[in-house]
């Protein structure tokens, strides 16, 4: 029996702005198991990044958790992250859950050397032995295939984008966290660099056995690295299942649409299909299935109540009342 390490229960996150309340995450239930890679897939505004940052309670100041619990199970105990105070959070972050952000370019303080930022991190968690931290940093930098002596004494602007991403990944491993959240870890990088990061993440998973959450708009990243995939639309999970289920047996029209909208290189030429329309306004949400205005399977019942996730196969959940009609697109 695989053990769960994180349990998100009925989570609601909102942002308040001038126009009203943006319902960014709406009633998400999600478990993360020990040693697994979970991908959160969705387009801009789907709530995937909000969900990721809510887990370590780093929402922008206008955002807040409205409802729900985020239960972390570690060291033989259960903790509700949503109840943590500032001091708890500070000790918890990076030590238990580390996060690699989308913009590696801007993730480092431009006026401090890489070493200072690594040592800052260690010191914040009570590790004051300089030579110990330095040794560990050097071995980690070597591990991510960087020249440790050169990188450690560099300022961030002296490193390329790919190098910075690797430094950030190395730094995320510094305190041996149990969970690593990666927000669009490859988006801004070149293809060859992307491949390198993907290979690196595979090695990390094999070596360290930690749990990872990938947040991405890019289906191919999920295809590369995920064990399970959660597809988000308008703040809710619409489909959740193993990577094979999602890519080869999608049961939600949106998942199917996404897969059919992405061209591939290797297989021969195939016609693609686009999803009409655009995502809904998260401030004034209509009742019913949020995808229904764009859905070709829509029936009148879709506009009444929002469907909840139902199990359609072993560990395969989908929020669609017409899931039986949806057949594999490939």
């Amino acid at each position, binding site marked *: 029996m695989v053990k769960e390490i994180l349990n998100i229960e009925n989570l609601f996150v909102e942002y308040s702005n001038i126009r009203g309340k943006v319902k960014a995450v709406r009633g998400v239930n999600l478990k993360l198991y020990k040693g697994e890679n979970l991908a959160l897939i969705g387009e801009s505004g789907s709530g995937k990044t909000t969900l990721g940052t809510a887990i370590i309670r780093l929402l922008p100041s206008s955002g807040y958790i409205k409802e729900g619990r985020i239960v972390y199970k570690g060291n033989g105990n259960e903790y509700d992250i949503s109840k943590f105070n500032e001091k708890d959070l500070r000790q918890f972050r990076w030590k238990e859950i580390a996060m690699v952000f989308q913009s590696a370019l801007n993730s480092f303080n431009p006026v401090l050397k890489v070493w200072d930022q690594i040592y800052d991190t260690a010191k914040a968690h009570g590790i004051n032995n300089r030579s110990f931290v330095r040794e560990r940093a050097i071995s980690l930098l070597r591990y991510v295939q960087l020249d440790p002596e050169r990188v450690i004494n560099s300022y961030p602007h002296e490193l390329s984008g790919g190098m910075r991403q690797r430094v950030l990944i190395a730094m995320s491993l510094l305190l041996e966290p149990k969970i690593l959240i990666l927000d669009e870890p490859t988006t801004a990088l070149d293809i060859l660099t992307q491949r390198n990061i993907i290979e690196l993440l595979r090695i990390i998973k094999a070596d360290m056995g930690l749990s990872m959450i990938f947040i991405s708009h890019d289906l191919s990243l999920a295809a590369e690295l995920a064990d399970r995939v959660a597809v988000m639309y308008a703040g809710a999970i619409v489909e959740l299942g193993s990577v094979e289920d999602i890519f080869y047996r999608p049961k939600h029209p949106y998942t199917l649409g996404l897969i059919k*909208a992405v061209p591939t290189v290797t297989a021969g030429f195939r016609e693609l299909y686009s999803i009409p329309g655009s*995502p809904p306004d998260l401030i004034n949400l209509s009742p019913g299935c949020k995808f229904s205005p764009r859905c070709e399977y829509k029936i009148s019942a879709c506009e009444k109540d929002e469907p909840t996730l139902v199990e359609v196969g072993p560990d395969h959940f989908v929020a669609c009342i017409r899931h039986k009609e949806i057949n594999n697109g490939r």
Partner: protein
Amino acid sequence: MEDRAIIQLDHVSKSFTVRSGIFGGRKHMQVIGDLSLSIGKGEVLCLVGESGCGKTTTGKLIVGLIRPTSGRILFEGKDIWSMHNEEFKNYRKAVQIIHQDPYSSLNPVHRVYNILSAPLFRHGIVKNRSEAEEKVLELLDRVDLTPPRDFIYKYPHQLSGGQRQRVAIARSLTLNPKFIVADEAVSMLDVSIRLSIIELLRRLKEEMNVTFLFITHDLAMAKYFGWEGRIAVMYLGRIVEIGPTPRVIENPLHPYTKALLMAIPEADPQVTRNKKPMQLRSLDIPSLLNLPPGCSFNPRCPFWIEGTCDREVPDMYEPEKNHYVSCFLFKGK
């Protein structure tokens, strides 16, 4: 092929001078080096490469936004920079560009109507407001912004990214162009929106018989859009491989193209997890300020031949019909 070419690049180079202050030293940054290329009427050519490889500069050179440092750019056989006024005007009207970022390609202070009617008035296509309005509505309809009356008096900020990109496409169509450069026209849009824009471009190409230069970093998108056309792969300011799209994808010749195809992550778990990426000699891309001698891929290339690749720049060889590659491995084949 040659005489039916609409755009030709004849040994085009472009360098920028980087200066540091009044007294600072000057450095030359060669962005495009000795580029020759010919695009036929009605063709789709996809220019593929990673960021900073010079593909956007090539696009700007072709639409005449910047002048080449050396070499000639020919439109229907005539050098655009030695055209007389009337000819240049015709060229300007015939060659248009669609930009990547729909948020900076539309002037925020103008309404859709003003954005689309300005070129119509300027070039005497319409005479008065009612004619212009009619024509603008027609253009909006053509790019699927329906009903057009809902969009004509909107400001750009009132539109979504996809809708803005449609307005930008409509603008590029105002003067009935023969040639459109689409510079990463969909890369900033969401996956579900992306494809509908691609489909729109494909339809326009059929309906209006426009020639496309489709610039992208996304090989899969290039393959999809340009299946019937050609792909040119660019690396550090040079084209390293060019050929019919199916051939380049199925039988890549240049080590760089191979590396890209083997590296590209794909939305199919079985396919993508079985990829065997090429082991490069170096992960770092050389700086344009300090290009390596010889083939610019040689410091990273696993097939590199010492003494050859790092000395001379390889010519374009044609190991299969219409499929060219600039690599010594194919010399004499």
